[in-house]
């Protein structure tokens, strides 16, 4: 609920839209009320006057009420149309703003503070959850606000004629609009929670069954799984049936209350008219007015239903938005240092206050121009080391400096501008080859693009395409082979022309032939730069390369491959395993 209130504050810039939307909606409901009440009174009065003979007929002002009826009818039609358009415009503008708001919050978190989230889950927060929040105003706030205002206005109008009837109407509206929906929500709370869980179970079972179909079939377990899906379906249906029954109860009760209120207004009118305390023509006014008034509360049961899901969506969105960025940025960076040596000493870092140390006293120096291979099993701290250099994560203890300047004092963007990173995870975006290259340098001309493609040995491939640089790469680079996609990432890195090159298993998942060819081309890119490559394998390492073996977040071995291979403790064992497990 608190999340929903926070959401309200974000509506600020659209105050004018919202106010006009609410007024229009209010006008629509009041027009309907006025239309029916006035029509009822007008017909009754005309009937009475009709009995009164010519004199009465001539004295009766026919045109004012008739014009009133036409006026209300027009307001109703136009108000409904304009009101809905204004409402939706406001809600959709707010949605667009919310999306940008959430993405702005996501950006400083990536990648370290988002590592636990799957991209599908983030996407559904950015699209589905935010869409649902758009409904907070449309389907909950606006109907509530309008219903309250309209209820008071309509009950007040009836009260002018008969105070008791106004009171009865207010009570009826409160019952039908608040008490009944709240009660059905309370009754259905467990069932609707269970519907959600059961539906998730059904979905999980279905995904299991479909993705694991090959195994399930050969284990002759498919019928059992199909039966399990059938069971989940039956459970789901049973719970939906309970919800349907509760919804039916709510609808029936709401209708009964509306009719009973009209009946009460009628009885009050009859009583007073019978005692000549009330003109007879006011009886249809009271009756029809009471009936028409319930249009105001009609959307409220659904609003109550939606509230729970919306609160959950708001919670999910704010859970990300409130996450503290892992790195605090200084206002500005010092001047670029004279040299670009990396020096770490006793660096400790972890991803959460209680988590184990990912780097635990890492001490390491990399001189400008050096080529270093960082080796280690998964969890040894290789990725954390890179995250540290790229300012994706903050270090708690020790010192880390670049060219003698403490990393903390440099803005993340400025640190990263010194690095080119090529990894298996380097993302290519749906767009053309040119678009993807220009991410590295938006102002690059075609000549530089071609030079970069040349370095990555991709220029021939691009030239052979009919649309050249404008050829689309497809969603998820689907139109490129694995090797071509890596080469494009390579070309992007070449275009960037940064002093540091980080190679994070850039050939992982490629077949050995493509891998060997790509490794060859990496050499061209590495020339003249400081290269840090991280790997858990010993392939493609020259005897004179410097190797740093990480273990438990610390340097375990450091030296040239040739030396470590004979004198080391870990490297010889890895080399043996590597030989055994060579890929073909």
């Amino acid at each position, binding site marked *: 609920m608190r999340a929903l209130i926070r959401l309200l504050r974000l509506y600020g810039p659209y105050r004018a839209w919202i106010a006009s939307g609410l007024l229009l909606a209010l006008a629509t409901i009041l027009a309907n009320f006025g239309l029916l009440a006035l*029509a009822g009174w007008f017909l*009754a009065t005309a*009937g009475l006057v009709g009995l009164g003979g010519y004199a009465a007929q001539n004295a009766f002002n026919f045109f004012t009420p008739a014009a009133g009826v036409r006026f209300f009818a027009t307001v109703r039609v136009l108000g409904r*149309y304009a009101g809905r358009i204004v409402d939706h415009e406001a809600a959709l503008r707010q949605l667009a703003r919310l999306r940008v708001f959430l993405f702005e919050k996501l950006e400083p978190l990536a*990648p370290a503070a988002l590592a636990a989230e799957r*991209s599908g889950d983030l996407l559904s927060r950015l699209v589905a959850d935010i869409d649902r929040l758009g409904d907070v105003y449309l389907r909950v706030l606006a109907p509530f606000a309008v219903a309250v205002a309209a209820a008071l206005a309509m009950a007040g109008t009836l009260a002018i004629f008969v105070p008791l009837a106004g009171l009865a109407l207010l009570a009826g509206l409160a019952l039908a609009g608040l008490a009944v929906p709240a009660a059905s929500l309370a009754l259905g709370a467990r069932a609707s929670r269970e519907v959600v869980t059961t539906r998730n179970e059904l*979905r999980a*079972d279905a995904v299991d069954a479909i993705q694991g179909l090959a195994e399930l*079939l050969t284990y002759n377990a498919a019928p059992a799984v199909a039966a399990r899906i059938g069971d989940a379906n039956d459970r789901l249906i049973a719970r939906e049936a309970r919800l*349907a029954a509760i919804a039916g109860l709510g609808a029936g009760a709401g209708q009964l209350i509306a009719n009973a209120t009209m009946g009460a207004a009628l009885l009050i009118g009859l009583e007073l008219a019978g005692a000549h305390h009330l003109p007879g023509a006011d009886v249809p006014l009271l009756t029809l007015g009471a009936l028409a008034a319930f249009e105001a509360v009609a959307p409220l049961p659904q609003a109550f239903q939606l509230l729970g899901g919306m609160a959950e969506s708001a919670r999910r969105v704010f859970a990300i938005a409130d996450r503290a960025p892992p790195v605090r940025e200084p206002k500005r960076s010092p001047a670029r240092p004279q040299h670009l040596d990396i020096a770490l000493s006793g660096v400790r870092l972890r991803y959460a206050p209680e988590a184990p140390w990912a780097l635990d006293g890492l001490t390491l120096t990399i001189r400008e121009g050096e080529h270093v291979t960082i080796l280690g099993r998964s969890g040894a701290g290789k990725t954390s080391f890179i995250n540290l250099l790229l300012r994706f994560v903050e270090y708690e203890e020790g010192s880390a400096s670049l060219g003698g300047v403490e990393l903390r004092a440099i803005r993340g963007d400025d640190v990263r501008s010194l690095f080119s990173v090529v990894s298996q995870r380097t993302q290519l975006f749906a767009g053309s080859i040119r678009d993807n290259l220009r991410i590295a340098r938006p102002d690059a001309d075609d000549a530089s693009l071609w030079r970069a493609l040349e370095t990555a040995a991709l220029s021939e491939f691009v030239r052979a395409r009919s649309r050249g640089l404008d050829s689309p790469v497809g969603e998820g680079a689907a139109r490129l082979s694995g090797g071509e996609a890596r080469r494009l990432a390579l070309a992007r890195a070449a275009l960037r022309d940064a002093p540091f090159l980080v190679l994070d298993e850039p050939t992982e998942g490629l077949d050995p032939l493509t891998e060997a060819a790509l490794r060859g081309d990496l050499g061209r890119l590495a020339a003249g730069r400081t290269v840090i490559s991280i790997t858990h394998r010993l392939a493609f390492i020259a005897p004179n390369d410097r190797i740093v073996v990480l273990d438990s977040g610390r340097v375990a071995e450091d030296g040239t491959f040739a030396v470590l291979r004979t004198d080391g403790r870990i490297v010889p064992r890895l080399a043996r395993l590597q030989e055994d497990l060579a890929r073909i």
Partner: protein
Amino acid sequence: MLDRRLTAIARPARAGLYVAIGLGLAGGLLVILQALLLARIVNGAVFRHGPVPAGLLLALFVLFVLRAALTFLSEIAAHHAAASVKTELRRALMKRIVELGPAYTVGEGSADLATTLTDGVEALEPYLARYLPQMALVALVPLAILATLFPIDWMSGLVLAVSGPLIPLFMVFVGHQAEAINQRQWRQLLAMSAHMLDAIQGITTLKLFGRARDEIALIARISDDYRRTTMASLRVAFLTSAVLEFFASLAIALVAVIFGARLLHGHANFFAAFLVLLLVPEFFLPLRNLATHYHARMSALAAAQRIFEVLDAPVAQVSGIAIPPKGAVTILCRALEAGHEPGRTVLRGLDCEFPAGLATAIVGRSGAGKSSLAAAIVGFIAPSAGTILIDGVPLSVLDREAWWRQLAYVPQAPRTFAGTVAENLRLARPEADEASLREACRRALLLDVIDSLPQGLSTRLGEGGIGLSGGEIQRLALARAFLKDAPLLILDEATAHLDLETEALVAEAIADLARGRTAILIAHRLATVRRADRIVVMEDGRVAEYGTHEALVACGGAYAALLRGAAAPTETPCVR
């Protein structure tokens, strides 16, 4: 067309639908009755005909209660009608997916199929429970109201009779336009989602290049485009309801003004006038309800299209009835041609033997047809030509399920299923006791991992449970195969890079598992190949070389080239 088929699948729910329609119609008739009563009571009050008979008032309140009861019952009836259809569709879909097998599900995308089975079927509910009954009521209730009004006041009856049918006509006209705009909006939504996913997945890359700020501006623009398209479609949708509103309000105003004039001159009576006023909104109510459920039809049609695509997909492989040979079998492929999609053969006349009791490794570059060969032997894809003989018996005549009982299949990316570790293992042998489970884990080199789990074998995996690492899942799949202890093993070695240590454990467990069985190993590691008794080198859907490791290395052909990580020599002199 689709509409008709959708109505046809509602057939099992026909009784339920009739009940829902009947209840709705009864509700409509009670409304008319209520209006008659009310008009009579109010007429009496206005013209002071003396006190209203208590019986009338009592009848009115009885009607209120009856109508509320009908509302409750029709809600339940509608749900029941939809429920039976949903259950039946889910059953049929699951059955068809099982029949179509993994060759189909891989191509179609498992997430999409799972969504069809759950949300796709769910999307039919509003159509079945609301739209269909309302369709019937739209015709019935206004007719009943007209039938009541005409004898009482033909003039207002005429106003309604003329304005009523105009609305659906106009709505069809607007609806056509709305459908086109709806589809455009749908495409825009997909494009926006795709872009957002791209941006989320690439957020690290964007940061690395210092471009994340630009992306934020782009997202703002795309969101705004989406708003514009959405508003365009909404304006049309709102126009539809504005038309309804217009006619309903116009009819009320018209009735009031015309009746007012007639009453004034004593040409009509108030009872009729008031009755008409009460019934006019009710006349348009079913139409308005239909309009609110119109989008239910749209989404149901979209969902139904996907459902029917799955249900209509042709089943390629049909099971035979012969009982497969027992024990370690020899498998012989003769001039085999097959592929995952019709018209795209991957295996092109493959001849090959997998001798009984020996481990045969299949190697080759990606796309050479290794996985297709495994899928054909397991029976997931049907050969378009040639045969697979199991100890001389064609695979096509064998009972599929009996054949599967003879083999253990370990795919490249095995899965854990929601449930405990023990349940995951018992897939292979439901009656296995705990000792056998532990023994299987021991042999798959997984026992240490299991013992370190919070509840050992009873630890829950997957949704709401813990996750295993890639290497652990692979060994769990091997443990399943150990437990099944089938005479034939078909294994697709994982290509994902694991730790060297983990990789060594997996390789060792695979070697242990293959021992003493007819084993077909799609191999990516030298360790696995070297331990195999025979090696098949595949190229372009055919066997390029066949022999032992030593023989093939000695002869220096494609296999030797593969080992060197070089391109194969153009001549391959090592066939047999």
